[in-house]
């Protein structure tokens, strides 16, 4: 699980971080002083040279980091979606004014009422898989739910506090 990330200063430019994957490839990021980041991939034949250097803006780098950080879970869910037709997954952002901010997941009674399950919560780029009924929501959480169309719509309504009961 531990990955060794090496840091190299680039005087006048910024800093470079790189890591060697278990498949033997080296991937790195050159962070410029002005916020620009280059994603660099190293050559297999010549490990000193980068094969490609892709400039990313701040926002692009953050988006990529999000995708990379959450890809494992979303990949599994995508597989699930293919197996069972009619079953959907959805990411639902907890609205700022939601009645469930700082309340337990169990309080929503979402599964009982809609048939859809909350299978994960994403918070600050981290994924909390299979949260239990005692899990406490916070503002800006993103809920990953699995269920039918109407079930998911129900969860969205519950989290927003728009449901009738």
């Amino acid at each position: 699980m531990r990955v060794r990330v090496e840091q190299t200063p680039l005087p006048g430019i910024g800093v470079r971080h790189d890591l060697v994957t278990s498949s033997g490839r080296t991937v790195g990021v050159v962070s410029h002083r002005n916020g620009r980041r280059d994603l660099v991939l190293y050559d297999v034949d010549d490990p000193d040279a980068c094969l490609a250097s892709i400039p990313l803006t701040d926002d692009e780098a953050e988006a990529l980091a999000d995708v990379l950080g959450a890809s494992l879970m979303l990949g599994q869910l995508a597989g699930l979606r293919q197996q069972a037709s009619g079953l959907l997954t959805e990411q639902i952002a907890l609205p700022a004014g939601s009645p469930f901010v700082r309340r337990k997941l169990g309080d929503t009674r979402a599964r009982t009422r809609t048939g859809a399950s909350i299978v994960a919560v994403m918070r600050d780029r981290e994924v909390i898989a299979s949260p239990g009924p005692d899990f406490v929501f916070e503002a800006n959480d993103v809920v990953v739910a699995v269920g039918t169309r109407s079930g998911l719509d129900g969860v969205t309504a519950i989290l927003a506090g728009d449901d009738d009961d």
Partner: protein
Amino acid sequence: MHGTTLLLIEVGALLFALGMLGRLGRSIGLSPIPLYLLAGLAFGHGGLVPLSASEEFIEIGASMGVILLLVMLGLEYSAGELISNLRAAAPAGLMDALFNALPGAAFAFLLGWDWRAALVLAGITWVSSSGVIAKVLGDLGRLGNRETPVILSVLVIEDLAMAFYLPLVTAVLAGAGLIGGAKALAVAVITVLAVLVVAIRYGRQISALISARDAEALLLGVFGLTLFVAGVAEELNVSAAVGAFLVGIAISGPVAHHATEMLSPLRDLFAAVFFVFFGLSTNPADMPPVLLPALGLAVITMLTKVLTGYLAAKRVGIALPGRLRAGLALMPRGEFSIVIAGLAVASGVEPRLAPLATAYVLITVVSGPLLARLPDYEWFKTFIRRWRQPSTPAVRPLTAED
């Protein structure tokens, strides 16, 4: 025509022409420095269109250009970076100095010049162009390469060495005699060390003095402080350029970042004027006789730079292709060589120095970035691969039998 009107027309036409030249250069992937030098040659004494009214303006603009080039160079580094780099890369920096300054000095003696001219030429051949090389590395997508920190640390050492070399040359060129020169030199070295210590210890406080929030105050504050320190440094015979460089190092953090953004356009403007000015002060008629020596010197010192980069990269365990990339990237000489030559021209130490330096920088700054691309070509890679494994299968059976 009125003097001021003529000045406006001349400066305007000159800057516009430079803008067009720069655009042309960029479209063919050429650094604008050689184009500006050529423009200066064309406009100067004995050139195609001599400028008359704007000479004084261009001269002042040129000295601003040097100061801005150096303060921006200083802004790129923090004092801590310089010191940590100094420890790690000192052997590479020393090698760089020996391999590249000595051929320059030897060449000057070969031409029958005196030792002062030799000292100047040593500096001209020693220092690579940080600006051109950083641009080439970025353009070729090599910022992530393993040999890049090696190249950068050689550049850092060169830049830092200039902080001591420039006052030394200034003192020598002032020709104050042995004792006077030594005294001037001592003052210079002490000043530089004192400013470096202040920059390292109190860089944060100096930066705090200038707020990063108010753009106008920041521009005026940094530019004013730079000009002031540069002027004081010049007065102490330390050279204005070094004063500006040290101010750049002293300013750090967000102030440095914003100052870099604010000063960049000013630097581009006045640096262009500086290169033109250097071209202006060279008579094109003096160029042909020094062209062949300049070419010879360029070939020799470009080879020694390749050797420098090769060995520096080898020290940190870079493979052969990377060593060659490091060496070839270090070849271009540029702004610093011209700054050094400019000092010599102002003191009139050797009349052939300016045309030689112009031709030398023109050759290296044009061919350097082109040659730096060599390792990216497929035929070059294949050639290196073959060269690394020269017919090993033929040797193996023999050793097996032994």
